[in-house]
């Protein structure tokens, strides 16, 4: 019985000699560089993940990533990126404390060429937004 098993084992080793030699070289390299300890740690990490995660958790997280990804794809398309970049600059540069503005204040602000330009942008966005909302209605 024992001999039978040994014989089979030897047969397998001979059959796969090339693969086993390559494997041994790799194991030696991993051991010498210390990478084998990292691999063992990694395996434990994957094992903990496997043992504690569930289909439900995986689904929830993947859904979150998918939704964020779909939205971010729109915000990072080249044109949107340029405009959002400008919004970012505006927020960073705007160091004034806000003050309440009434109708008169609003009219006065409308004389400012920068405000006029920003309003043009907002109107463009409003137009496109209206269309997008109607398409989804």
């Amino acid at each position, binding site marked *: 019985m024992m001999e039978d098993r040994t014989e089979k084992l030897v047969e397998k080793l001979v059959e796969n000699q090339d693969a086993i030699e390559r494997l041994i070289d790799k194991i030696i390299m991993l051991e010498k560089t210390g990478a084998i300890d990292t691999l063992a740690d990694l395996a434990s990490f994957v094992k903990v993940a*496997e043992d504690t995660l569930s289909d439900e958790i*995986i*689904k929830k997280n*993947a859904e979150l990533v998918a939704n964020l990804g779909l939205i971010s794809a729109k915000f990072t*398309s080249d044109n949107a990126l340029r405009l959002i970049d400008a919004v970012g600059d505006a927020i960073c540069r705007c160091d004034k404390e806000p003050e309440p503005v009434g109708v008169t204040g609003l009219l006065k602000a409308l004389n400012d060429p920068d405000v006029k330009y920003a309003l043009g942008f907002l109107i463009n966005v409003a137009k496109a937004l209206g269309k997008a909302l109607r398409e989804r209605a």
Partner: protein
Amino acid sequence: MKRIVILGGGVAGTLTANYLVPKIRGEIRDGNVEVTLITDRPYQVYEPGFLYLIFNRLGEAELKRDIRELLDPAVNIVIDRATKIEAENNRVVTENGVYDYDYLVIATGARVVPEEIPGLKEGGHWFYNFEGAVRLREALAKFTGGKVVVSVMGVPHKCPVAPMEVSFILHDFLKRRNLRDKSEILYTYPINKIFTMDPVVEMIQPMFDERGIQYKTFFNPLEVDAKNKKIITLEGEEESYDLLIAIPPHRGAKVVEDSGLGDKGGWVPTDRYTLKVEGYENMYALGDATNLPVSKAGSVAHFQAEVVAENLAAEIEGIEPTAMFNGKAFCFIETGWEEATYIWFDYYTPPQPVMPSKFVHFVKMAYNKAYWLTARGLL
């Protein structure tokens, strides 16, 4: 102005649009090119999810997504059913309009035709479309034991590995419900082995044996006797069943057949490397719609979309199109309720499955939710 029309809003059409548009965004903005995608429903369906829906592991709403969420905003979307492709006039006729094109991409997919096996609609179930999957979910929930036959009734069919997967998951499903001892599972396949690819057979067949999943090969159903619950085959066999899960025959899209562009199965004759429709310089076909001897799988549509988008963009820019499809396919294979393996292969490389593991199953579970990022061209 150059007009590109993409017909079909499945994996193939959506990905082609999403890969193409960023490459020619300047031309679109300048009004030199228009990309229009015509599809007959306002949402996309994630079909691989049907395999989970039938065991109530994913719900209907999780398998659909508004096509607008998935497409680059520069794509002109038309929700309408195409009735005819007039290749000689370079235009597509829909129920509500006519669309001229300079380039056409046919991505109309495949459809299941259970009616081609007499008695199947009355006597059997399938999970290859929404209605079928929902009906099968109900039947499985009510199943109290007996003989389940998983029968492949025609090739080619979508996702070649799905029949094996459903058998494995079913085995665990019945075990979890304490019904496995009272049940038999029989898997049937039309050719002389349980799957077309030998390395897959070598791995899967012993796994079937271990689980007591029986199989019959050279099994070509001709009709289903719904009253007596029997399958009758070309080989003259009769096989009884209590629950029949069939993989129905498939055909190409109706519009392809009606336009005289399909072969006898309704598949579009397509060059296996360039993906151009044979005989037409300005028509591409990809995804399930083609006659190519590659798997009808979303992953294939994905890899093909990269090629079609690159070549179309090159043609628009006046550059020689050089991208070629290498036959690549990737398929997960669920081998139980919570373990899976996967294969990939191409025209030159045979598949080599890895050891099934829970980890691969988790990756698939995550992908079921993250698939929409693939449609968007991000994953």
